[in-house]
């Protein structure tokens, strides 16, 4: 324990009810006036550790010291009282309330019994001015773009007088430009004497922003380092335990006939917003088409329209020449379309069913899995799943294990195994490697390329720029529901320019975008 630590956590162990040990004897401490990085692979236990610090989770073993005195943090209330604030990885906002209502929730200004709305608005304006984070107090949170939501989250923590501010992957949803702005604000906060804990997967950011960094691996702390003393490569080696090559070797694509044709597609959501706005492109056999863009610019709705999950108003989507507008999800799947959903827990699996039953999914109707008298062919199902588990190196006790008791990466592998094993014609992969560790990422990316080489058409939607740039043969950039750019040759293209397209600062002209149709 360092003597100048304002806050330290000692020997923290946390076991989740499903038996997962998220933290094992972790020591962690921060000093006043520093930005402290916290890095580690997915599932290393970063969020868990910070949730313990913020009182959202309770450690099973371990102590927390504040200015040398042991304290108990059994609720966020207690943490806030100690001056700890947290900006969460997943937003914790109430969509139907306004920005100012979200901001003052819990510390509401009152006039007698009454909640003083106008004071709330006033407070929001003041705070927004003071920290140079611009927000509209009257806007409903559900109408805000993610970047603004992020700002509201930060203001929320600051309004509660946070001296120690935890930021859990605040940059995952920001564009490069927004990031620069945020970093300046964080540095300013630090210089005013606040402590900031910064969690990120992007080591470059950590290098640029932080003073010190704690590295975690598999629930354990691997030590604290001064940022000047280590390189990005060092950190990633400590994180993963080996050298990592994230480059996937692939040959130049040999595109054949077009499989998917999207023509002037328009989707309007339930809040009456045009989330996909007149999009046209086509995707050919044997190529990977990336879709880049800041989250919330219509990618999800595009994927939903193609996979039959959401309806769309105007335009058409053709798979193999067949219009899918009236088709059900099942019928679209029968055309040979497979789909890796963005959110694996909400769409991709049935958490309380077994691996076997999850691998079955849309294939449960197939003749090979059904016998006479309406019975399913249980032994075939067992054999096929055992095979898949082996082939895709899924880590589970048996194919009878409930999926919810598996790690995120392995759940993703279950989904990938199911979707890839079917010799699909068209693969719609939405964030296929989100939230999974490097090894699994490598595996999935290789598979995608393999499938491409075998003649599948792949639509790759990802918020991870590296992924899009490395895997795609060509890609689209989406902004505000529109295609903002179509990049045919990925090899000589830089991130800076991409950022400008993503932010809508620049856009290609209609002809350039029109090339995406390949006619």
């Amino acid at each position, binding site marked *: 324990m360092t003597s100048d630590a304002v806050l330290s956590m000692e020997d923290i162990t946390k076991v989740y009810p499903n038996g997962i040990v998220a933290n094992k004897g972790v020591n962690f401490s921060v000093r006043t006036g520093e930005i402290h990085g916290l890095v580690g692979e997915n599932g290393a236990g970063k969020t868990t550790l910070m949730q313990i610090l913020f009182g959202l989770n309770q450690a099973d073993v371990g102590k927390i010291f504040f200015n040398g005195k042991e304290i108990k943090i059994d609720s966020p*209330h207690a943490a806030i009282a100690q001056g700890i604030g947290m900006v969460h990885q997943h937003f914790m906002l109430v969509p139907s309330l306004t920005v100012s209502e979200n901001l003052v929730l819990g510390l509401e200004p009152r006039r007698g019994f009454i909640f003083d709305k106008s004071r709330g608005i006033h407070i929001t304006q003041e705070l927004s001015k003071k920290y140079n984070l611009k927000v509209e107090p009257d806007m409903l949170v559900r109408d805000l773009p993610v970047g603004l939501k992020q700002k509201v989250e930060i203001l929320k923590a600051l309004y509660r007088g946070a001296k120690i501010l935890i930021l859990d992957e605040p940059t995952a949803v920001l564009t490069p430009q927004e990031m620069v702005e945020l970093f300046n604000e964080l540095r300013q906060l630090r210089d005013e004497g606040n402590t900031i804990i910064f969690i990120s997967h992007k080591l470059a950011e950590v290098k640029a922003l932080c003073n010190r960094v704690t590295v975690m691996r598999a629930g354990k702390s691997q030590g604290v380092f001064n940022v000047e003393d280590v390189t990005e490569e060092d950190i990633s080696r400590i994180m993963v335990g080996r050298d990592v090559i994230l480059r996937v070797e692939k040959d130049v694509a040999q595109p054949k006939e077009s499989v998917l044709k999207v023509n002037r597609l328009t989707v309007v959501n*339930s809040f009456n917003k*045009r989330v996909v706005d007149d999009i046209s492109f086509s995707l050919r056999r044997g190529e990977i088409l990336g879709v880049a863009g800041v989250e919330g610019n219509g990618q999800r709705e595009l994927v939903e329209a193609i996979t039959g999950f959401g309806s769309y108003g105007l335009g058409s989507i053709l798979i193999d020449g067949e219009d899918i507008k009236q088709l059900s999800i099942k019928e679209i799947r029968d055309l040979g379309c497979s789909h890796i959903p963005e959110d694996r827990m909400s769409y991709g699996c049935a958490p309380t069913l077994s691996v076997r039953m999850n691998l079955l999914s849309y294939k449960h109707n197939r003749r090979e899995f059904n016998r006479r008298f309406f019975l399913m062919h249980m032994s075939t199902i067992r054999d096929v799943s055992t095979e898949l588990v082996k082939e895709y190196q899924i880590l589970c006790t048996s194919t009878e294990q409930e999926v919810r008791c598996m790690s995120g990466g392995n759940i993703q592998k279950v989904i990938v195994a199911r979707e890839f094993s079917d010799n699909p014609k068209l693969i719609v992969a939405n964030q296929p490697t989100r939230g999974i560790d490097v090894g699994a990422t490598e595996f999935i990316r290789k598979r995608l390329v393999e499938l491409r080489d075998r003649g599948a058409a792949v639509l790759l939607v990802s918020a991870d720029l590296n992924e899009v740039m490395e895997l795609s043969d060509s890609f689209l950039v989406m902004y505000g529901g529109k295609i903002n750019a179509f990049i045919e040759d990925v090899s000589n293209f830089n991130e800076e320019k991409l950022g400008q397209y993503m932010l809508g600062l620049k856009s290609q002209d209609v002809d350039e975008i029109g090339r995406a149709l390949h006619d």
Partner: protein
Amino acid sequence: MNAVFEIVLNPLFAFSVLRVSTPILFAALGALISDKAGVINIALEGIMLISALAGVIFSAISGSAFFGLFMALFFGGLVAFGLGYVSLKLKTDVILAGIAINLIASGGTVFVLFLLTGDKGISSSLASKLLPKIDIPILKSIPILGPILSGHNILTYFAFISVFLVWFLLYRTPLGLRIRAVGENEHAVDSVGISVVKTRFIALIISGVMAGFGGAYMTMGYISWFSRDMTAGRGFIALAAESMGGATPLGSMLSSLLFGFFDALSNSLQLLKIPYEFVSMLPYVATVVGLVIYTTQKTKRMHRMRIKAESKKEVL
């Protein structure tokens, strides 16, 4: 048909609609508050029953109707607290806990009544008290309106005042803000240091107290004794009314009145030549129809919005 109009146009009919709606309105407001906090309170039925008995017993013991009312509310809150304890702390599924409480209430009230009076049917051997009826001075003498609006039990007035109070609570106070927030995203509430469990507890207890008013009204206003299972499904109807009313105070009030209207109608329609079973079915059918109409309108509205938005571009 004429006869139906004759019945409906009689001021006494309107009077009885208000009277019949009162317990349902109380319970519907209770349902509303807990629903806003994200908890389905299916135990309203049982809570009303228990409060109804508590009102009788304690007003008989103390000789004071208001003490009876107080105890009815106390028990309403207490049972709701119990529901909160098992669902929020012990993590019992709240629907199941609700069913269980209804079961306990149904058997338990008879059991207690039996222990106290030796009767399993009705509490008339307890000299319980009634809450007063109120004549409203000027209103009383206005024709038509007077007979409809004046002379109700004090709780009937309070029920309608409660609509406003509940609205005020939910939309104008910090507590209301928290209740609505916890119902929509509990993590948001958690993350700002408000206890989710505590907020829900408070909402549930208020909900129980509202049902307690309904129960007290049943035995100390509506009729003057307790009889077994006397709530006869009013708690469930209240849930339907809240749902039909689109989870708003005003909507809950209107749908409670709608149910009250059909219930009162079913009491009077028997005098016409319609089989009583059909007439008795009327309020329930009306509730289902109301529920469906409400939800259809909602989906239609969304659909219309969608079409409008999609076609806008074409026009441009």
